């Protein structure tokens, strides 16, 4: 059963499959296809990955709101029958104008909203089923990302938990000097920028003093490879989308 997990799918191949799917979806407007892609991503995550149901729901909430927002936007302001192009000077006609626009715009609204859902489905599918180190290693081995970029990205990502602490330090430093710092004050942000630049110099020096070099050959802890199944899965998904685009009625 462990062989069927999408976590094992090569991350670079997975990334290109997601990006190609997005490009395919960009040039079509069929609701059944976009909703189908969204459902497919959910099914893959629930049955063929180790992604926790709770984290799927948690990340889906903002995505659903974004999709809902686009849906309502399409409902009001589709180019076919936007309420901006109607005569709304007569106040009594406004509700009618709204209703008229809504009834004809329902399809474009659904197209806009479901497209966001499909993209979010693909994005969440990738994010929740891809280990960050495995992803970056794969970018190094399959996409020829140079090790200095790869380890630079990882170092930066791993610094994130320190940023909050650093912000508090900067605020305290200003307070001890008797300088007021509000919530929207840029002063601590500027101090953090200065420190970030010093950090980057220090980390670069630390890495180099430990023998990190970009030009010499090195060994790797994780070495992702692309197998036949990685490619087959990608081809299967993309062909399924192309088939759906060609055969779905709406």
């Amino acid at each position, binding site marked *: 059963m462990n062989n069927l997990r999408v976590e094992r799918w090569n991350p670079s191949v997975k990334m290109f499959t997601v990006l190609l799917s997005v490009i395919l979806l960009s040039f079509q407007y069929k609701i059944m296809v976009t909703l189908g892609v969204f459902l497919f991503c959910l099914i893959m995550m629930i049955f063929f990955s180790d992604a926790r149901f709770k984290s799927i729901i948690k990340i889906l909430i903002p995505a659903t709101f974004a999709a809902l927002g686009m849906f309502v936007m399409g409902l009001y302001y589709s180019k076919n029958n936007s309420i901006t192009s109607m005569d709304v000077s007569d106040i009594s006609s406004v509700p009618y104008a709204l209703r008229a626009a809504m009834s004809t715009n329902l399809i474009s609204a659904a197209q806009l909203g479901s497209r966001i859902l499909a*993209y979010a489905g693909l*994005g969440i599918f990738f*994010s929740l089923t891809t280990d960050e180190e495995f992803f970056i290693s794969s970018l190094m081995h399959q996409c020829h990302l140079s090790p200095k*970029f790869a380890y630079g990205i990882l170092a930066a990502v791993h610094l994130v938990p320190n940023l909050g602490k650093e912000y508090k330090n900067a605020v305290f430093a200003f307070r001890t000097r008797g300088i007021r710092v509000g919530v929207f004050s840029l002063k601590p942000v500027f101090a953090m920028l200065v420190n970030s630049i010093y950090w980057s110099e220090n980390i670069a020096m630390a890495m180099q003093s430990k023998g990190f070099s970009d030009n010499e050959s090195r060994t790797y802890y994780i070495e992702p490879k692309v197998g036949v199944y990685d490619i087959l899965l990608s081809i299967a998904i993309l062909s399924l989308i192309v088939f759906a685009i060609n055969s779905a009625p709406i």
Partner: protein
Amino acid sequence: MNWKLKDVLMMGIISVLFGVIYLGCTYAGGILSGVLTPMGLSALGYEPFYGIYFMAGAFGVYVMRKPGAGIISEMLAAIIECLLGNYFGPIIILSGLVQGIGIELLIALFRYKKFSYPTMIAASVICSVLTLLYNLVVSGYNQIAVPVLLLMLAVRIISAIIFSGVLTKLVCDRLAKAGVLRGYAVGKEFAMSEE
């Protein structure tokens, strides 16, 4: 291209910092977008913060002043945001590429020699237009009525002018004056002007 490890780390950490600021703005944008949803203008809620998206690229090309700096910085920022759990996942790497090209296009035409306020502002405007063209195709904005699109573009341009046009240059110049950017192209310019 000649990128040093410390350049990569600098851009990476700056991207993380912008990423966190951006995340804060996304919450604000989310609330604004929610408020605007009943009026059908939810997508407009995110537009005031668009300029912050462009800041990583603008910062990179302004500080390093060499070909590819804007595009690479913006893509680094996008990969990092993808790792931090943006719900659009690797799709934002694609938007990062478009944003990077948008901000660097004009600066490349000037051969990485002009970095005045008008240049940075014009680059931000071009970036806004280019990213909206990308949204027209990829996000399906071509389904939206033209007046609404123009309103969105206007808000996006204002945001870009403030954040990636003016604020980025202001902050970089102050950092350079403070001597923090001595190892970079922008720092050398300030060192020369002080002599």
